[in-house]
């Protein structure tokens, strides 16, 4: 990667550049990136690190599918398999699906509101570095064979010392703690930036939809995030300092963790997907050649989703024997939360209606969300029903559901954002042909991988097991083949990014253009302001 010369270093080494001078220049360049407090640079750092975490967690997933390709236990020891699904889930959710949108948010939200930078630039840098370290703390035990084995939910009392004594479990707590601190601080930062650093004349109801996605996700993170911090601290105390918060001998001791954990972690799934909905709101109008259909309804349905999503968390506990009133309440609200999301998607569909649609890659991915998230939302409704959930809970139906909403929502949203904003970040467009290969590979791969899981679930295949009855081989084989295809498609993305970074500039290397929206002039030039980072000296 070429790097822009640091002015001071260049002056000193002008004329016959010695090796020492080059090294000094490299140090200045590295310093200007690693210690940066500039929102755009932090955004780029987020994108790089978080996509690397996506790569690692994706390889974990592929390893699991490789093990599940045959009914027997052949590739891994069971505890390694447990470690794989724990780290895969934790890293995908907490270190990809949440911070990826901090990356896009950093790069674009300040510009969208007309701010020079984030409200607290150095706090912003801290959030990034905590995401970086959290990924390392989470993954290291995997390589030291000190596996955290309790899954991404890490239910107490299963995660108490008598049942899981590895350092990996302790470091799982530390990693998730660091990530939650990071995302809570980032959320505070986004909200204050939008509230305080707006240019005069920028009203909340003229903000780009992506900014609304960030606002709603940040509200959830600020309100709910610290509950997880509290639960993690209590778990750590139980493991190390002899407290008895999650004492299984108490009548509700086994449920306490789940109550607190899901109060955060259900809203957390919306933290992962609301910004993706925001990206759809930027991409779909532009490539449909029409203004967004009813901006107000879009914003209100984002806000409605936010509000209702904070009340559905007891639906994770239908099978635990919690009080019926909680189950009934959350069953109703879970059905209810599909209403604002449905309104949002109908708005996006109405935006497409009679538009002149261009199927560029950002649009393909946005439409991919429209398709896949709808499937994931629909199969989630089965889980909202208490009697059906009692049969399907902890089966592969659940795995199918979560991957349709999170791969189909968050990951596809991240790809849409990457293709859409790549020219604004690097001054070049990603290659369209490779992009189409990436999209179709991902779409077909995701459906092949995760759709059969619904049938596996109804056949009774339980999640988090390393072996299964031979009768379920066919569906598992399809799923594994789909996973391989999904993985290959991501190799195409990686190749596309690397190729685009180093290829010479082309005539069409301009940003994708601004969203068209009738009631907003301010957002228009914002996304269009390009600055080059990699190509600065070239």
């Amino acid at each position: 990667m070429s790097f822009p010369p640091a002015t001071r270093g260049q002056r000193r080494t002008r004329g016959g550049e010695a090796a020492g001078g080059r090294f000094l220049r490299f140090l200045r360049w590295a310093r200007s990136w690693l210690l940066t407090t500039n929102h755009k640079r932090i955004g780029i750092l987020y994108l790089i690190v978080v996509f690397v975490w996506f790569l690692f967690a994706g390889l974990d997933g592929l390893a699991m599918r490789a093990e599940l390709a045959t009914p027997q236990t052949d590739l891994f020891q069971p505890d390694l398999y447990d470690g794989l699904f724990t780290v895969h889930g934790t890293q995908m959710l907490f270190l990809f699906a949440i911070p990826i949108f901090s990356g896009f948010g950093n790069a674009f939200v300040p510009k969208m509101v007309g701010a020079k930078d984030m409200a607290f630039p150095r706090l912003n840098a801290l959030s990034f570095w905590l995401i970086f370290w959290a990924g390392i703390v989470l993954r290291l035990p995997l390589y030291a064979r000190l596996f955290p084995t309790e899954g991404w939910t890490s239910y107490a009392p299963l995660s108490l010392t008598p049942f899981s004594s590895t350092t990996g479990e302790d470091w799982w707590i530390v990693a998730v703690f660091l990530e939650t601190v990071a995302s809570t601080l980032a959320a505070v930062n986004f909200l204050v930036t939008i509230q305080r650093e707006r240019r005069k004349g920028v009203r909340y109801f003229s903000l780009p939809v992506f900014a609304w996605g960030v606002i709603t996700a940040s509200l959830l993170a600020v309100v709910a995030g610290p509950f997880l911090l509290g639960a993690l601290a209590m778990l750590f105390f139980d493991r190390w300092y002899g407290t008895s918060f999650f004492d299984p001998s108490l009548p509700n001791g086994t449920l306490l963790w789940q109550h607190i954990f899901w109060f955060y972690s259900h809203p957390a799934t919306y933290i992962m997907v609301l910004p993706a909905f925001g990206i759809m709101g930027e991409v779909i109008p532009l490539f449909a050649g029409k203004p967004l259909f009813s901006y107000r309804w879009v914003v209100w349905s984002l806000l409605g989703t936010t509000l209702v999503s904070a009340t559905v968390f007891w639906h994770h506990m239908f099978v635990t024997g919690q009080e019926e009133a909680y189950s009934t309440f959350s069953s109703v609200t879970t059905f209810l939360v599909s209403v604002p999301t449905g309104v949002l998607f109908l708005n996006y569909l109405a935006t497409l209606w009679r538009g002149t649609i261009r199927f560029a890659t950002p649009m393909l991915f946005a439409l991919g969300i429209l398709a896949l998230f709808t499937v994931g939302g629909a199969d989630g409704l089965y889980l909202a029903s208490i009697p059906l959930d009692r049969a399907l809970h902890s089966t592969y139906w659940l795995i199918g559901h979560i991957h349709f909403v999170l791969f189909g929502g968050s990951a596809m949203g991240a790809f849409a954002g990457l293709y859409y904003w790549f020219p604004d970040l690097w001054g070049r467009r990603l290659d369209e042909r490779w992009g189409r290969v990436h999209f179709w590979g991902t779409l077909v791969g995701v459906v092949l991988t995760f759709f059969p899981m619904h049938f596996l679930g109804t056949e009774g295949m339980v999640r988090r097991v390393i072996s299964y009855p031979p009768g379920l081989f066919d569906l598992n084989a399809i799923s594994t083949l789909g996973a391989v295809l999904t993985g290959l498609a991501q190799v195409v993305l990686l190749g596309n990014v690397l190729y685009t970074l180093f290829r010479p500039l082309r005539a069409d290397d301009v940003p994708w253009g601004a969203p068209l929206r009738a009631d907003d002039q301010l957002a228009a030039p914002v996304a269009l302001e390009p600055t080059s980072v990699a190509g600065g000296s070239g």
Partner: protein
Amino acid sequence: MQVEIAKVPESPSVAEETSVWPFLFGLALTAFLGGLPVSRPFALSGFALLLASAVGWTWSNVLRPPPEEGEIGGRSRLWWGMVLLIVSEAGLFLSGLLALTAHPEAFARDLNRPLTLGASLVLWSSGFVGGWAVKRMDRRGRFTGGLAATIALGLLFVGYQAFEYRRLYAEGFTLQSGGQGSIFYFLTGLHGAHVVGGLAMLGAILGLALARRIGPSRAPAVRAVMLYWHFVDAVWVVLYAVLYLRLF
């Protein structure tokens, strides 16, 4: 096509926007927490680095002029930041209070209500004194005097809490004493840590004001710290009512 537009280099100042403190602080927090289950010296050195980078971060803030507020009028960005931080901190304490729902035995033991009420009154009065002091930032003598009184009252409270912990431990009521011990020490300890953090911030302001390093131009920061101090007082109202008076 406008190919040139993609070649516009970043302004040189972007490369100069750096600070070492967030990097160090993140490293230190990771070393501290990651070290806890592995090695005590490692965790302690992480904690030392954490304190050092907090001091360095604060000092670097003192050295630079206060950043300009945004175009829109109203509360400062620090005020908004502190309000949101308080909302999330409230969740931290609430998660501890939620533990009470699983622990019916959490109110088994009687705690020392009258003496603690005295200490609580000391803490709450520090909030009033501090609020009074912040309104007088332009009169340096009153400001520093008020702050010193606030800090003294806060220290008195922390001292009482240390005394009470000692007494309870001597009576055999410890962190390991079932649900009540866990919840009592977790919540009061979390609150105590917040008091100590607040005292550190107030102490820094007092020291800087005495050294004439900060003046009324830093009012937003001082007000934000005082908002935090009020929050710490308010949390104690809830904790005293729940843990001591059993209003739950």
